[in-house]
């Protein structure tokens, strides 16, 4: 009863290439689920199907027991699905704080007529928006950089800012696409703390794509492995580590290595 996300045979084809091929997936509320697989396995494409950037060629997606397969991307966000991007997509011309503010529903649903003719009410709402967004920056540890331009931040911090922006949409489910890429070990530990805070304190369910095995094994409740668009394994971290098909898929691509060295 408490599934938040479910896909049934999710498939997308780009010409001759089936990037995601009949993937069945179930995620429970509060569970930290990770999606791993070699480069080009279809992980990001699956995220794009979940968020509506692409539509399924066949199969269905359910979010909070509603069939959202045909729903538009921005409607899915309003329903409670937020995401970050593997190739960071922050707004260059805006400050750190503004990058979070634009995602806050009370900011982007602000009536322009109100802004023109009801300054008092608008000001009150804006004050609340700023307060809440600053609190989110505090959570990801960026509150003393709110006045800087978003793209002047180092890579790792930009990824954290994308997380704060995702949180500002008030999601139930947050999809993180390689949140640890470009971070050093210390930053990755901070990232773990942030993700724990999001799931434990904010009660938001998190789905993660990540290549760093140590990080994945440490944080995940459960792991799903994709290869060539298909789900080849699913289970607890220790089961996945021992799974021969997984090892083979990674060995084939020469990628399964402890990223510490």
């Amino acid at each position: 009863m408490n599934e938040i996300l479910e896909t049934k045979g999710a498939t997308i084809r780009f010409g001759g290439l089936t990037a995601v091929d009949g993937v069945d997936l179930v995620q429970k509320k509060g569970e930290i689920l990770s999606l791993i697989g070699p480069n080009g396995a279809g992980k990001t494409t699956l995220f794009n199907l979940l968020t509506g950037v692409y539509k399924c060629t066949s199969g269905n997606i359910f979010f909070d027991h509603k069939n959202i397969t045909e729903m538009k991307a921005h409607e899915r966000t309003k329903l409670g699905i937020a995401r970050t991007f593997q190739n960071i997509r922050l707004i260059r011309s805006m400050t750190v704080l503004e990058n979070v503010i634009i995602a806050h529903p009370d900011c982007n649903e602000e009536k322009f007529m109100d802004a023109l003719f009801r300054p008092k009410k608008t000001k009150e709402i804006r004050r609340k928006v700023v307060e809440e967004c600053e609190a989110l920056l505090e959570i990801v540890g960026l509150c003393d950089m709110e006045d800087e331009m978003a793209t002047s931040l180092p890579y790792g911090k930009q990824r954290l800012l994308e997380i704060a922006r995702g949180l500002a949409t008030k999601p139930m489910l947050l999809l993180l696409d390689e949140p640890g890429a470009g971070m050093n070990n210390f930053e990755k530990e901070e990232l773990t703390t942030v993700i724990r805070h999001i799931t434990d304190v904010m009660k938001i369910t998190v789905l993660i794509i990540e290549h760093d095995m140590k990080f994945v094994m440490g944080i995940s409740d459960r792991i799903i492995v994709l290869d060539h668009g298909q789900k080849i394994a699913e289970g607890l971290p220790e089961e996945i580590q021992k799974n021969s098909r997984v090892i083979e898929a990674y060995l084939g691509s020469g990628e399964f290595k402890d990223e510490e060295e």
Partner: protein
Amino acid sequence: MSKIKELINKIKKIRLSKMQKLVALIALIALIVAFPYMVNDKYTIHVFILCAMYACLTLSLNLIIGWSGQFSLGHVCFYGMGAYVTTLLMMNFGMNFFLATLISIVFTSTFAMLLCLPTLKLRGDYLAVITLGFGEVFRLFLTNEVDLTKGPAGIPSIPDPVIFGYAIKGKQAYFYFIMILLVAFIAFMKKFNNSGFGMAMMTVNEDDIAATAIGLNTKKYKLLGFGIGGGMAALMGSFYAVYMGMISPTSFAYAESIKMVSMVVLGGMGSIPGSILGAFLLTALPELLRAFSEYRMVLYGALMVVMMIFRPEGMWSRASRLKNEYKIKAEK
């Protein structure tokens, strides 16, 4: 060139206190009121009226190009539609100017959104070509629908606007009228720029995938960009009609669209001061260089190429939001 850059950056950084702002405002009002008495020359006042009118038009086009990110080359269509609808309502139904203008704004803005609808999926060059074409179709319509628009001869003797029994008449009155409009346009654009709505539109412009991921309906903002920009242009068209006292299709040829685009590009896309600067320069300079008027289009073209190469962001580029305006406004 770098000296000018430095100077502009210096001006950008000036922050006035409340008291200074008040003094500056009073001085500005005094200057505007005194201006027609000071120059006391009809031609100069006329040039300034045109400058201010083009500043408003440039702001309206910049909202479409610089804020909503759609390269429209057919702005003259909305400008002309505003002029014709207002004029026809005034002449055929004896309607008051202000009511007629209101209707013409709503009409044009609806039309602009309908025009935008099929072009939503188009990008850059395609949209530019389609809007350019549409401007021409509109001009041909004006020329050929003789029954409605009186054709190429145009519509003469448009009455002056009447407000509270007082008719706006003569250069001086029109000068004050356009200054009030310009100030209103600037105030409107500033509010827009710092509102949640304006920030959302900029987000859609910069990255539509990121925009949908934070819950923004990109189509809505593109449509409204055209709708608002078109409506503002219609207001200026209405002003133009009563100010000139006559309109004809030749005032709304595609060259006019090109001129406005040049003003946007020269001034700076997405920049309020840039729009005003671009409009004043490109309106006043050709007047000063009357002798070269035949080469005007060539000059525009050359100027655009030079700008694109050396300063693609325009003279006064969008102050890439140096401060958290949204927060500052919320806490003041």
